[in-house]
């Protein structure tokens, strides 16, 4: 074990989290899921049209982000739901706090570890898909394909980061692991399914209040819709179908949307730290 070579408490805790995820097969399982998902969408996605062909980059990214918006938050939740309540239940949270560590170091150590695990799982899975597409898809412009995948990977991991932080908040507030996972599945259901559906309903309806400002605000209020909008704006929204194209109609640029996603991450980090700092022991 190389842990003794590390001197920063954040790196030590991150290393342990990576070991944990590797031992409990989370990394292998989720990596395989992401790989299966991206390979199916890339190489078999056209089967529904009656023929098999490699899709255009825009259509591919649109399909991948449409499915990932459900899977990535769920994977992030499953990875991190017990980050604090699990340690609390096993008595190791109290033990960690008796060590010369600040609560911020514990929080950032866990965050770095979980982020690395997520990056490894998505990076390997989507990376293999991108390499196979480069090898087999002669019609792709290499630079475009690589930049599209990099953009997709970055936005997916930022979305994962927001849900890891939401998991931390719920985990810090929960008294049992079962309650934490239950609460988080409800959060996932509300953000990914219900809120998304409400937003799309408003977009396609002709409500008088639904001007651009309201739509922008509604997109900004959900990290999943920001993720959808980022990926649609990144591909110009042309390949999206139906109501999804309207999400890309937001007059924010890509940079502003990324800034909003970072604002989500910053706010959730601050909330997690505040809750952890005041958590009764």
């Amino acid at each position, binding site marked *: *074990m190389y*842990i*003794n070579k*590390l*001197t920063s*408490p954040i790196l*030590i*805790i991150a290393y*342990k989290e990576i*070991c*944990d995820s590797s*031992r*409990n097969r989370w990394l292998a399982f989720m990596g395989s899921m992401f790989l299966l998902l991206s390979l199916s969408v890339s190489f078999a996605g056209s089967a529904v049209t009656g023929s098999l062909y490699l899709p255009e980059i825009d259509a591919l990214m649109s399909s991948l982000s449409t499915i990932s918006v459900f899977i990535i938050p769920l994977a992030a939740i499953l990875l991190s739901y017990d980050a604090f309540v699990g340690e609390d239940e*096993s*008595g*190791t949270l*109290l*033990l*960690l*706090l*008796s*060590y*010369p*560590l*600040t609560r911020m170091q514990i929080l950032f150590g866990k965050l770095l570890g979980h982020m690395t695990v997520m990056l490894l799982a998505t990076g390997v899975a989507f990376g293999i898909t991108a390499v196979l597409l480069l090898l087999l898809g002669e019609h792709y412009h290499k630079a475009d394909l690589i930049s599209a995948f990099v953009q997709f990977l970055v936005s997916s991991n930022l979305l994962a980061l927001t849900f890891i932080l939401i998991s931390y908040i719920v985990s810090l507030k929960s008294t049992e692991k079962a309650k934490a996972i239950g609460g988080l599945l409800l959060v996932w259901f509300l953000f990914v399914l219900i809120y998304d559906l409400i937003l799309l309903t408003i977009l396609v309806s002709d409500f008088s209040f639904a001007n651009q400002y309201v739509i922008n605000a509604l997109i900004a209020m959900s990290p999943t819709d920001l993720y959808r909008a980022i990926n649609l704006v990144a591909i110009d929204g042309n390949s999206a179908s139906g109501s999804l194209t309207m999400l890309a109609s937001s007059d924010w640029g890509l940079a502003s949307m990324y800034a909003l996603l970072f604002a989500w991450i910053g706010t959730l980090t601050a909330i997690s730290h505040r809750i952890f700092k005041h958590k*009764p*022991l």
Partner: protein
Amino acid sequence: MGQYTAVNLPFEHNNTGSVMVPPSIKLTDVSLQYNDFTALNNVSFEVNAGQTMALLGHNGAGKSSLIKVILGLISPTVGKAEVMGQSAYTNHQQNCVDIGYLPEDVSFYDKLSGREVLSYFGALKGVNQARIESLIEEFGLGYAQHRQLKTYSKGMKQRLGVAQAILSEPKILLLDEPTVGLDPQASQFLYGKINQLKQSGCAVVISTHELSLVEAHLDIALIMAKGQRRALGSCSELSKASALKITIGFSELSERVKTNAYLQQFYDQGLLQFSAMHKADIIKHLVTQCQIFDFEIKQPRLEDIYHDLMGQSLRSPAEQS
């Protein structure tokens, strides 16, 4: 001209100029309030280097809160908690290096091996690999060091827990129920290790319900009830504080006592029964007046003292009077 900075040193000098080492743990009138609930009420005590204190009390008596106050995880609502002469709460980060802690029923990380767990906690305290190797051997975990913790028995996990607590050769060791679920051999092994640490100058606090086990190893016991200090002292001091009697028995006791008026007042049910304050006088009478040299003194056991004192604390003041 040089500038001098005032530094609060934890050490005081006595009249002879020699350095007085502060107590390892010192609590002065500590109270802890959670909204309407009083977890600790005016608790004071000291534990010096090389002393072992047993922390006794029913569930909810305030033992865990007291340990958290010593660890500096909670600031007392009222009073002062000091570790090595420094505030436990405000110097939490520095104090942590000198404190080893084993929480109650800790289950560590099931997917990691014993060696990995020690390496993880060792790295967090900046302990080198050689120390980890020696602890693995010392605690007899060498044969299982690469096995995942889920395959460990309760005794092995507890040995690992104590090894974790002493990773950095602490000056203060806090153990919460260290022998729960252990077989007598494993308990004896743990107390052997605790005694070694004590001899090397470590102050040890053991929170436990297993009074018969801890009795032989403690210097002082703190008995808590409802967040308050019910009693504090060595076994003999606690025995004096309790209403329990010391007993002496030997063959032909009734015959011998008949001739001694002083001893007769303590004779009851075939035994001499008396409180600790009369012990010296009674032994003197037995030896000098009755020429009896072969007798058996039975001191009250810690468990009896505990039940007696706790019984007193649970009784109403009217009943006690």
